[in-house]
């Protein structure tokens, strides 16, 4: 390995600290860049002013502009570049500034990354992590607000991950970067300021495919991701005062999907609510319900709360707030599930 890609510092620091979701992302990147000289970060403006969402602050100074690499605006092109790097000894992390831009890279994302190892007869590994920043509530309008989380879940060969908390962001992103398969990792820009306790260090690295129980409860299981998981926890806290005990399961991996964790929770609570920041049709929520029905898990009538199917995300703050499930809406839906 040449001097260009030497490790920059010693072992990642460990211990529990309070970080924002944004800082947790940056810290995960920093720790993986420090631990492995073949890791690099590339994307539009990733090395300028900390990146568009300030997740990358300090990284260019620590690791240099070869490893924190700005690209032109050409997602399909630079995702293909990342693929070429990944099969020749590097471990690239690609930042897609808004999840709405993912479809411009659909050839690389759908046809190349997931299929490359398979088609070659297992001759290579494809350790590419795609960080995709999505989600509404930022008043970004119709073309900058999609979570995109279910767009690419039907692709064997690809892994799909998400994070709803700072701890999850740190833990899952590090696992994604270390994994030898392509991982599409969704961040939610509405969560970047959220603070939380984060365990740092190698012991905190997530196990691939494992869901997290964000809050334990006995009356109903809420399965969710990203901002909706965060809001579900807040709703659950509010309902606790009324004696409703809510278990919130966060799906940190949409492929592979942790059905066993959901089944275990629903077998305990007997009720299921899926909360998702996307339309229900064709998404992971519908897939979860399908699987549980096929497994014969007793759960009464499963409920859903998702984006309405007859409208798109609008800019006007009042409209956007009416379209995205709020804490109150989630609490109301939980109550109706529990009270029948």
């Amino acid at each position, binding site marked *: 390995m*040449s001097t260009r890609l030497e490790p920059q510092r010693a072992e990642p620091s460990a211990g529990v600290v309070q970080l924002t979701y944004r800082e947790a992302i940056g810290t995960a990147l920093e720790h993986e860049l420090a631990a492995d000289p073949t890791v690099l970060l590339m994307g539009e403006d990733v090395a300028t002013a900390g990146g568009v969402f300030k997740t990358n602050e300090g990284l260019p100074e620590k690791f240099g502009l070869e490893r924190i690499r700005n690209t*032109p605006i050409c997602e399909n092109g630079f995702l293909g570049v990342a693929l070429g790097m990944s099969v020749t000894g590097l471990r690239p992390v690609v930042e897609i500034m808004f999840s709405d831009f993912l479809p411009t890279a659909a050839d690389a994302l759908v046809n190349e990354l997931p299929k490359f190892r*398979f088609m070659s007869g297992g001759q290579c590994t494809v350790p590419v992590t795609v960080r995709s920043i999505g989600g509404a509530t930022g008043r970004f309008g119709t073309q900058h607000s999609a979570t995109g989380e279910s767009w690419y879940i039907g692709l064997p060969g690809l892994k799909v991950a998400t994070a709803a908390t700072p701890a999850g962001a740190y833990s899952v992103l590090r696992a994604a970067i270390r994994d*030898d398969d392509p991982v599409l990792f969704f961040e939610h820009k509405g969560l970047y300021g959220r603070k939380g306790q984060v365990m740092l260090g190698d012991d905190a690295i997530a196990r691939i495919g494992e869901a997290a129980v964000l809050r334990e409860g006995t009356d109903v299981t809420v399965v969710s991701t990203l901002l909706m998981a965060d809001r579900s926890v807040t709703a659950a806290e509010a309902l606790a005062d009324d004696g409703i005990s809510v278990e919130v399961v966060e799906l940190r991996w949409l492929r592979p999907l942790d059905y066993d964790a959901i089944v275990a929770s629903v077998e305990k609570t007997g009720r299921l609510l899926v909360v998702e920041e996307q339309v229900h049709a064709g998404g992971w929520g519908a897939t979860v319900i399908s699987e549980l029905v096929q497994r014969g898990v007793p759960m009464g009538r499963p409920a859903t709360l998702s984006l309405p199917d007859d409208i798109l995300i609008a800019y006007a703050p009042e409209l956007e707030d009416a379209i995205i499930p709020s804490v109150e809406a989630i609490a109301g839906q939980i109550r109706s599930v529990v009270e029948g």
Partner: protein
Amino acid sequence: MSANERVGWMRKMLEIRLFEDKVQELFMQGQIQGTTHLCQGQEAVSVGAVGALDERDYLTITYRGHGHALAHGMTMEAAFGELMGRTSGCCTGVGGSMHLTDFSRNLIGAFAIIGPSYSVGLGAAMSAKLRGTDAVAMSFCGDGSTNIGTFHEALNMASVWRAPIVFVIENNLYGEYSPLRETTAVEDLAERAKAHAMPGVIVDGQDVDAVRETTETAIARARAGEGPTLIEAKTYRYRGHSRTDPAKYRPEGELERWKERDPIDLFAAKLVAEGALGEGDLAAMRAQIQTEVDAAAERAAEAPVLSLEETKAYVYAS
């Protein structure tokens, strides 16, 4: 270049020609199914360009890639095996005709979709540069590929990053069934290099010596850190786009005119004129290669098909 080495090129061009003819035959017999994209007529580009690479260099090719793979040293048995869907294939029969890949030789990708040959090749070139090696990458694609966004995206990035890569366009005049002039605003695709501030070079794709010389210059430039080159090799495919295409859209006489400049005939005449080959040598060489082609196909066909369980193991590495 030594006479022996150039006789080796002759052998390789013949091998590619006879391999592709055999593929056609095996297709008619049902031993190869699906589709194939043959490259008879384009052998001088494969042999001239790929032969200029060193072992450490990277190569990306496309669905019309049998010639490149063989020129790169893939055995005919591994290529036939792949086309037959057998474990004797380079990808154990999982990839098929459009995906002749061999990581042990740095042939890191064969693409069935237009575009990523450029971007993935560029990734390998940048990887080589960042890892501090002096390896270069070569990416092949056809004339039709110069109209897709990824071509321009990759050329722009390659130029901005002064990447050690050589892009080779095989301009065989047709993008699938459509003549280039109907789909493309320029006649000489090398002109498109100007838009991305790199040298664009046109070479006679029927002349293996010319292809080799042009490619060597581009590789030397890439290896010296001076950046990418776009080479346009003017050539012609004798067959249609794919197995089901009889290529009736071609004007009368066009195929015959190109066959007058057949790359194998041209080079054979040159070698004979130079005294490197005798007339009889050529016939003997052809007969010997035909025997090798037939034997390789037979050996490849003897291998079993991979089990579904083993195939599943390819989906994820972990």
